[in-house]
């Protein structure tokens, strides 16, 4: 096995020398600023809230901010190379790639005039993203509020709700907010369902771009949605449009399942358009991993039962989903599996030995992709084409 690049240099080191203590040894804001922020939150509502860029969930975030938080939403333009660069420059080298992307997004959002940024919490390193990013951004000189979902989670939903009220908007109409929160969940479910259909059929369209066109129209329609009725309407429209698109699907197409880490395996910016690259090759793509299956319908112990030949315990935030999905794909005769993760994602790295066994047992090839901020687009093309060719050859041989 080839030595990884990391082995070349033996020791990395850095030194920080500051004999005079110029700041308090804490990541927190000092008390005065905190008090001021509290006053500000109570009497002057934040004007513009921004999420980081995450997959195709932008309309749901918009709905959440406008309908639940009752605050203005600041949509971010398409990410550029500059976004990633800023993120990389201001984060430590070994931190996982989503951290860098998200930091870049926040810098851009704050430059565009946002004064409230929203960050998720999670069971892996994600749980610490918020606090560290907040402190980094403040050190860079930005003044803002962060609604960090990693705060207050130790107190359950109530703690979360309190955090939202105190940071974002103390005047939220709570019953209204709860109804709209349900709407947000509904929108997420619909987005995932539509995306699943898109992935399964997008590779076989007769007129190039017709699925993308319908998808974009759907996204725009959702961005204008204000209640659950609009959401359902939009879903109906897009499904009708999808059904009208002429497709030419072979009887036995190549089917690939994508598994992996929550951010990189879905987000087309960080995985360099993996979905579209595969569909362009004429592949039926499946991906069990999405917001619905991980958060809204997630029942980890039951999911684990399906994969109990391989795992006894929950192995990490998305590990059970990764392994259960891989096994399901293998069992239902998929041609190949792609495991996509960001560099240094510990839980997904730990899934690899298990996936290797799945691959061994079912004879299904798995392509392991690791993305960092420097992964080349052409390199990915080559690998995907080679993987596709191998699968196609294997299929021909068997039939």
């Amino acid at each position, binding site marked *: *096995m080839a030595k*990884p690049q*990391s*082995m070349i*240099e*033996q*020791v*990395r*080191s*850095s*030194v*920080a*020398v*500051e*004999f*005079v*203590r*110029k*700041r*308090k*040894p*804490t*990541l*927190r804001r000092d008390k005065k600023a905190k008090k001021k922020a509290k006053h500000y939150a109570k009497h002057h509502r934040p004007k513009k809230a921004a999420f980081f860029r995450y997959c195709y969930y932008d309309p749901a975030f918009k709905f959440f901010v406008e309908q639940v938080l009752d605050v203005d939403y600041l949509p971010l333009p398409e990410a550029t190379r500059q976004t990633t660069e800023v993120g990389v420059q201001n984060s*430590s080298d*070994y931190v*996982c790639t989503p*951290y860098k992307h998200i930091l870049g997004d926040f810098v851009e959002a704050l430059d565009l005039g946002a004064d409230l940024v929203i960050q998720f919490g999670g*069971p*892996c*390193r994600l*749980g*610490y993203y*918020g*606090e*560290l990013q907040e*402190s980094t951004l403040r050190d860079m000189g930005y003044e803002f509020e962060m609604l*960090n979902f*990693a705060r207050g*989670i130790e107190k359950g939903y109530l703690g979360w709700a309190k955090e939202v009220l105190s940071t974002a908007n103390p005047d939220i109409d709570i019953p209204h907010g709860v109804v709209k929160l349900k709407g947000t969940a509904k929108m997420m479910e619909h987005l995932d369902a539509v995306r699943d259909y898109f992935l399964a059929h997008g590779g076989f369209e007769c007129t190039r771009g017709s699925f993308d066109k319908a998808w974009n129209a759907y996204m725009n329609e959702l961005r204008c949605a204000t209640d659950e009725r609009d959401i359902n309407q939009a879903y109906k429209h897009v499904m009708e449009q999808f059904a009208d698109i002429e497709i030419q699907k072979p009887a036995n197409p190549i089917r690939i399942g994508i598994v992996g880490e929550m951010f990189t395996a879905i987000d087309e910016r960080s995985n360099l358009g993996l979905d579209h690259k595969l569909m362009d090759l004429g592949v039926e793509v499946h991906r069990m991993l999405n917001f619905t299956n991980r958060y809204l319908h997630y029942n980890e112990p039951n999911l684990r039962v399906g994969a109990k030949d*391989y*795992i*006894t*315990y*929950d*192995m*990490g*935030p998305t*590990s059970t989903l990764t392994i259960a999905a891989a096994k399901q794909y293998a069992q239902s005769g998929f041609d190949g599996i792609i495991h996509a993760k960001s*560099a*240094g994602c*510990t*839980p997904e*790295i*730990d*899934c*690899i*030995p*298990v996936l*290797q066994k799945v691959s061994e047992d079912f004879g299904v090839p798995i392509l392991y992709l690791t993305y960092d901020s420097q992964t080349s687009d052409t390199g990915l093309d080559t690998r995907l084409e080679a993987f596709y060719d191998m699968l196609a050859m294997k299929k021909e041989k068997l039939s």
Partner: protein
Amino acid sequence: MPEKAPWADVFVVGIPRSLLYYRFGVLWTTFFEALGRHVVVSEATDKAIADRGEQLSVDECCLASKVFMGHVDSLVGRCDAVFVPSYPTADHRSGFCTKFQSVTDMVRNTFRDKHLEVISCEVGNVRKMRDVRRPFEEMALRMGVSRADAHKAFKTAWSAQAAHDKACNEAQERVLRQLVAERRSAATQPLKQPPLGILVVAHPYIAHDTYLSGAVLDALRDMGAQVVFADALDHDHTYKKSFEFSDTMPWIINRELIGAILSVEDKVDGIVLISAFPCGPDSMTDDAIMRCIQGKPILNLMIDAQSGTAGVETRVESFVDILRFQQKGGYTHG
């Protein structure tokens, strides 16, 4: 129905001397010994173990987990079963790196073809005795031990671990007291060189594994520095202290390390952070420490597969030079 006591015939339990062994090792060994089992702990890490571990692991794993695989491999054939517990993040503020959660299943899959029996339990919040006791007792039941015996064994093991932690803490406190005393006496005698106290901040499985961090510690001691281990200081105190630094940090060991820095910062002259490449939690906390802890110089060392010690020595030497220069008057008294 599954078998009631599938592990009843496990008489020799193998424990890899790696990862959390350095934190909970006394608890584990005492527990199995109190159950009347024989415990085999793998040898100290050496090159053969590290190399074997590297072969068995995925390239991108961290150095410590590669070494762990080597330790498990060295136990194959020497015991009836290997004990690999799973430590998930049961509490949002005192969890672990997901590595410790997944390690059981990683070992099961990696060694599947070698028919290695793995016994394990899923431990809850490690700061609560009850959360730890229940899984250990259940494991004992599956080994065919009665609940009463298991309860007793756990009690012994828990207090043994507590006594061990206390002894380690006292040893560090002694060094700290000595440092303060020496510094005071050096202040009155101008010819005497003041002592140099270095706080070594590293996960216990790095700091106390001589193969991994020995070169750094030796270099420090050769330069006449007194080493204080941050991970050995009173866990409860340092854990609570860490909330002054961070509200949402999810990892208990990193919390304890940061709490240790905050509590003894004033008594030492410099801080050395050692982490294994590419440690997940450390990639985030080291950045925060380097940025926010001021007043004492900090050296951050990232160690990889250990081959040469020259690189480490140069870095440690130049760092100690900075500290000595500061002691003699330094840059700030210009």
